[in-house]
């Protein structure tokens, strides 16, 4: 039974002039920690606000535990909401902030006291209970925002960029604690972010949104290994894109593609025989999936199995050492450029201008339909 379900939700603003969310449907299972990921303005925050009842969908239905909650105001939806700007009640003490939701639900006094103490202890703020929130910096306000949202015992937690305002280093430590807390409380959680690294690190599932639509939904691993659009491939991880066309079709859902005139020919998968002869396509492969070998490398003598590797030659344009990693900037004869990433301790003595052998596993090459305006498509990230 899905905890949250959206059916054909559309939301427009300013009398239909602005389309924020465009006919999306999704299901979220009980106990899942879901991330809504996308660039700013993609409709992810609006989607959250519609689930919480802070916005009313223009069309479509929201179901909680299979119950249609249309017309139920936010105060009766029983969801915790953590805001990007925290939205702490500055005119109340820390204690009053945390007990607010409990009082609104009319719990008896001794229950409120126990529960608020327990929650404040959980986030480590109990000693500040009688202070006003202006003593806190952002991490403190953040913890208070969390405590306030979970104190009243809602089973669904909604978060709008809750770590967005924090210092990146603090946020990195915090996100794991936060995940543990959500799992311990057995909450169904849905969080918005534009930070793909954060989503990859802690999400059970990621929903990628763009321009009001859902592009893809899946576990971080699925999305990373099998992106179904140029946008998803580029948004989650660093990817090289090259333009080409289908040169030959093989059996067993395989094909040969030619990277522009003068470029290499590569054999890659053609799932469901989706692409036809002469189709224009884009291939994408991750920076870290590009192998580099010296020109005279002998694959037969190598201890590794290189049977599925595709090789072609490229010229080293430049390289850059960035601490943990090393980047190699390479160019093909056709003029196309791409990047390979290696660990910082990768041993080599290549010179600028060297001809090198490049290898890519067939399975690491993703093929996409060629969009009308390819450069525009990858620059929108």
């Amino acid at each position, binding site marked *: 039974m899905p905890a949250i379900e959206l059916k054909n939700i559309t939301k427009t603003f300013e009398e239909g002039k602005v389309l924020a969310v465009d006919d999306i449907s999704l299901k979220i299972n009980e106990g899942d920690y879901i991330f809504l990921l996308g660039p700013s303005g993609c409709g992810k925050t609006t989607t959250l606000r519609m689930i919480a009842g*802070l916005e009313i969908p223009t069309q479509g239905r929201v179901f909680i535990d299979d119950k249609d909650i249309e017309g139920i105001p936010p105060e009766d*939806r029983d969801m915790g909401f953590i805001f990007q700007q925290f939205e702490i009640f500055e005119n109340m003490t820390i204690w009053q902030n945390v007990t607010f939701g409990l009082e609104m*639900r*009319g*719990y008896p006094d001794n229950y409120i006291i126990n529960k608020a103490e327990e929650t404040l202890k959980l986030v480590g703020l109990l000693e500040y209970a009688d202070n006003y929130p202006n003593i806190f910096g952002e991490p403190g306000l953040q913890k208070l925002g969390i405590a*306030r*949202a979970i104190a009243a015992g809602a089973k669904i937690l*909604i978060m709008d960029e809750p770590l967005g305002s924090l210092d990146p280093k603090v946020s990195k430590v915090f996100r794991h604690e936060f995940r543990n807390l959500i799992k311990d409380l057995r909450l169904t959680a849905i969080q918005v972010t534009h930070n793909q690294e954060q989503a990859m690190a802690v999400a059970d599932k990621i929903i990628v949104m763009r321009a009001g639509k859902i592009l893809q939904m899946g576990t971080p691993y699925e999305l990373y290994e099998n992106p179904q659009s140029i946008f998803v491939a580029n948004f989650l991880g660093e990817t090289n894109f090259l333009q080409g066309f289908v040169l030959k079709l093989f059996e067993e859902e395989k094909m040969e593609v030619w990277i522009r005139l003068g470029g290499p020919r590569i054999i890659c998968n053609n799932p469901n025989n989706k692409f036809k002869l002469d189709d224009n396509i884009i291939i994408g492969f991750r920076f870290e999936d590009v192998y580099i070998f010296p020109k005279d490398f002998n694959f037969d003598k190598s201890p590794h199995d290189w049977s599925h590797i595709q090789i072609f030659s490229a010229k080293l344009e430049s390289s850059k050492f960035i601490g943990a990693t090393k980047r190699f900037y390479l160019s093909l004869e056709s003029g196309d450029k791409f990047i390979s990433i290696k660990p910082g301790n990768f041993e080599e003595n290549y010179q600028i201008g060297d001809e090198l052998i490049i290898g890519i596993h067939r399975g690491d090459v993703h093929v996409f339909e060629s969009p009308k305006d390819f450069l525009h498509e990858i620059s929108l990230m």
Partner: protein
Amino acid sequence: MSKQEIILEPSELEKEAKLSLALRIDRFFSKPLYRKGLDAITIIFFVIIVIGPVIYIFFNIFLNIPSINEDIFNDELIGDLQWNIILKSLVNSFSIAGLAVSIDIILAFPISIILTRYNFKGKKLLDSLIDLPLAVPTGSLGISVLLFWGLFGITPGYNLVLFGHIIFTFPYIVRNMKIVLEKADTLYDDAARTLGAPGFTVFRTITLPLMKEGIIAGAILGFTRSLGETGATIILSGLIDTAPLVIVGFRRQLKLPSASFLAGIMIAISLILLFSVKFFTRKVGFPVKKVWPKIEKKLSNNYLRHLRNILAIIFLLLLIIIPSFYILSQISGPEISEQMFAEDNKWAFLYIAFMNSIQIAGLAVLINLIFGIPLAFIIVRRKWGRAIAILDTLLDVPIAIPSAALGFTIFLFWGPQGINLFYPGFFMILLVHITFTFPYMVRPIIGVLERSNKGVEEAARTLGASNLTVFRKITLPNIKQGIIAGGIMVFTRSIGETGATIVVMGGIRTIPVLIVDWVEASAIPSAIFASLIAIIFCAILIILLRTTRTGVV
């Protein structure tokens, strides 16, 4: 976050949850139906109380065209004498208002700069002294000005009226300039100066354009206040007439069609001014972009700057502050006690008038509070598009209209000539005061509401608070400052109002009217005493207003 044992199952206590009575009432009245009802009642109140009378006066003039024509232009005995009186009074009123505002603007430039860009001892005191004439009954100011300039041999007449008007329009102009200057970042100034612009050039080319809206807003307020002023003008006018005095005169002689004709003219002119300012403020620019480096460099030197500041302070003291407070030096105990408590027993009248003033001001605050908060919410929060813009402009109508004319419209609308629901007296005075103070209540609340954070309210809703609970527990504490500021503003304006009150008072007296009465009866010491009480009362309120820390009124 430390790991703790977490209770997962709802305890027995959780099942006992029961909402308190207050929360249940909030929930009940949070239904959209009640909100819509309140919106409707608020709009109806606004239209009937504030807009209705203004529209009605034009209707009334239209109905009375024959008798207006007869009385004003073709009277059997006096011909078009009335028209001549009206014309002359309008010329007087507009020329005095124009001159007073111009002089105020010139003086307000250096004063507002001194008050915002300099730090010195007594700055707060000076600031409060400048604001005080806002609250003091203009009749009291009138006596003070009369006595002060009398020392120099200036007798009642055009000049003395001008001197009086300079004083009570000054705070409106300084205030509005100050608000803009405080908002305008000195960083712009600094940036321009690092680019080589001398101080004077910076002021003229950078600061002045930023101040434009503040100057215009202040000027329009001062101008309309001057046009409508009655209390001080009666005392200072001698033989000349201004338009409000003519309205009061016509009203006393029961020449109602003539009075409504003149009130209609004044209202029409004021409304045209208001709307043209609303629509053109942003389009008007200060024309001179050219720079004269040598002259402006010289003008920017430190001696001239000090000279400017000193001159400004001298003129401030001479034109505004000393004449306002000269009255305090004229208190004479024996004379006061004789007039107050001897056989005249003026004390009894003063006490009654004082109680009337306080009751009327208090009730006006209360009623404007009840309808002002919902109206501010409508203007800030409802998404009604153009309707909101119209409502927002109409809200300024009672401020823009000269108060004597406004008083007369209300007399016509509610009185025997119109709906016939009220007669001149306590309740009609109250009605007038509700009308002309309404914007003073709503504007500050709009100010704080616009700045208040809507996210906090949403947070409270997700925590289970209904709309009304959110209003009580979250919104109200956030906008409290604006409400207090608005309330004090309404109270002080109501306590000091003269012109509109005279038109509708019947047999009832308020303090400002009593002061005018006593001056006309030459009971100057009693008038001084009454003024003193009003001034002390208002000074306390102004100090309260200052301590609420809002720059929105």
